[in-house]
């Protein structure tokens, strides 16, 4: 299973903070989004992380990974 997390405005837009996907259904981070949100393209400025490292949407995912989607950061 792949655990999925959403943060900030993206979390609010989606209406929940976590999801999960069967690892066999997805190959990349972009697939994870696509499977979970088939009607909703990933917003243009969305940032992606796998296991808490920034990655491109084309990066591979494997069973047990934590994938995160979030908007541009605004800390500091």
């Amino acid at each position: 299973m792949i655990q999925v997390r959403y943060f900030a405005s993206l979390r609010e837009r989606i209406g929940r903070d976590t999801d999960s996907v069967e690892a066999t259904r997805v190959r990349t981070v972009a697939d994870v989004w696509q499977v979970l949100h088939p009607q909703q393209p990933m917003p243009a400025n969305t940032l992606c992380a796998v296991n808490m490292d920034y990655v491109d949407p084309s990066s591979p995912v494997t069973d047990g990974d934590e994938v995160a989607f979030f908007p541009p950061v605004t800390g500091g």
Partner: protein
Amino acid sequence: MKIDITDRPFDPWQCIQTHQRDALEPGSHGAMTVFVGSMRDFNEGDEVQAMELEHYPGMTERFLQRLADEAGQRWSLLDLLIVHRVGYLQPGDPIVLVAVWSAHRLDAYEANRFLMEALKSRAPFWKKEQTSCGPRWVEKNTPGYGA
């Protein structure tokens, strides 16, 4: 080196004094730089009454730790301290503290600026403002350098 993410209000000057007393020998450091970012009571022309600061627990710490390591490799530093607030803030509250100790001022200035720029552009924190027109997510940090 210390990195602290806290949901309680912090006093940057107290944090610096405590860290300096515990971690640094007097006479060892010729130069130190500090950046303190605080919550303003206005933004984009609107009054801001309160703020909620969200982060990605785990990734935020990991990201800041890497930044600190990178700064330590690029510049000659004696120590550094990063404190960042999360949770519910009031106007005037400190949000972020970056303190850098070095033998020389160039390293202290450059490393501090590097840490703040990287923190603001890439560390997973998000601000939600409570304004007189309702709540709103801050969409984008102002670019610092080279923009």
